[in-house]
């Protein structure tokens, strides 16, 4: 009978020590909404299952200061409920609220979404757009990794065999900013066929001074296009040039390398990725234009 050993560490240190002791033969489990499916199908094998859900210090959501800190055990439901706390958390909440199902959102975690590193992972795409940084611990110490470098391939991250994600830090942008996220799916409860996250910022309140465009599900990892973001600088907020937006969206799409899979063809991803990028740019710019200027 296929089974595994269940381990329940009582601290981050103990969790890291257990992972170090067993290496790739051990897997961390939080919500388990991806892990258990993959274990059953044989895609993933492990002898030891390390339950993180009883470890204190991993479940937090702190938006008070110079950065937003999200603990890896923060559930998608908790993120969906954290509205009215600034444009970044609002977009994270809106995005989380459209992922999987309400029941799955009760146990599925932000940390799980990132560490499982599916190319379609919505949190991964959006957090990359927000310049998030992963806080990582091991028995040997701790380090930080920009999310831009965290994802290395399909279901692959830079996390070592003995490392644990202990937090996600999102810097509050230096200028007033807004964020938008768009995704395309076959049916409403589905992984993204393509997605786009856009952040725009303004200093003078009239034009875009900073922009970042990230496209998801169109490459093994989220793809950021600095060139495309650069095209949006100078964009007028009150009457944005749609040709510029179109060009920026197309430029972002050109840096992706989509494949055909069960959800759609690479051609579809190319076309839709561009459309989603355009819509996300338009939405972010509209939000920035409508947002009240700081007093």
């Amino acid at each position, binding site marked *: *009978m*296929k089974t595994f050993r269940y381990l*329940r560490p009582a601290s981050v240190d103990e969790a890291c020590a257990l992972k170090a002791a067993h290496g790739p033969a051990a897997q961390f*489990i939080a919500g388990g*909404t991806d892990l258990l499916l993959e274990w059953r199908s044989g895609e993933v094998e492990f002898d030891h299952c390390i339950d993180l859900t009883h470890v204190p210090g991993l479940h937090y959501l702190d938006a008070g200061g110079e950065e937003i800190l999200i603990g890896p055990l923060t559930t998608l439901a908790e993120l969906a409920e954290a509205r009215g706390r600034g444009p970044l958390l609002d977009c994270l909440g809106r995005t989380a609220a459209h992922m999987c*199902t309400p*029941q799955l959102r*009760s*146990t599925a975690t932000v940390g799980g979404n990132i560490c499982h590193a599916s190319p379609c992972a919505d949190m991964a795409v959006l957090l990359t757009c927000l310049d998030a940084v992963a806080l990582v611990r091991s028995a040997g110490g701790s380090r930080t990794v920009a999310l831009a470098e965290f994802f290395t391939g399909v279901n692959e991250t830079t996390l070592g065999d003995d490392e644990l994600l202990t937090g996600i830090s999102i810097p509050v942008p230096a200028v007033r900013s807004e964020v938008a996220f768009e995704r395309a799916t076959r049916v409403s409860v589905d992984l993204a066929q393509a997605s786009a996250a856009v952040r725009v910022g303004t200093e003078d309140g009239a034009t875009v001074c900073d922009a970042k465009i990230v496209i998801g599900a169109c490459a093994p990892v989220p793809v950021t296009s600095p060139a495309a973001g650069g095209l949006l600088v100078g964009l007028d907020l009150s009457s944005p040039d749609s040709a510029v937006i179109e060009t920026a969206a197309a430029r972002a799409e050109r840096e992706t390398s989509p494949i055909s899979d069960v959800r759609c063809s690479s051609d579809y991803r190319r076309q839709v990725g561009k459309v989603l990028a355009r819509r996300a740019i338009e939405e972010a710019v509209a939000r920035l234009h409508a947002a009240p200027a700081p007093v």
Partner: protein
Amino acid sequence: MTKLNVNGKVHELEVEPHQTLAEVLRDKLGLIGVRVSCGEGECGSCTVLIDGRPATSCLTLAMQVEGKEITTIEGLGDEDHLHPVQQAFIDEQGFQCGFCTPGIIMSSKALLDGNPQPAPEEVMTALSGHICRCGAYPDIVRSVLHAADLMGENCEH
């Protein structure tokens, strides 16, 4: 031994690490109101409440939820004392075969606990993780709205 708090009672059970909460509730506690249909977390028929929140019991390891409060349909009410949500589904015939109904009732109860007078769209959003193969969706929404009225009346007395 794993201690599970189910419907207000603590049970000490022999549980294998890979066993899901759904399996344990059904096979060890006889709570067959917890349904397993897709077994992949997409249909919602296995929905139970964990600390008051609707959760997918077919994708939750039983060992993980030690210390949590688990509620199944059997914990809501029985034939002699139906919970208002159960009564509402009977009043409004919110089902045909009834297979998906327990899970839907659990999600509905959680919705009404937090939002006592939901709009129809809010009901649909809250139940978006449930599939009803018989297509009783309009009857389901009507039942939940009726449950909201029944629960409102209960509060007044």
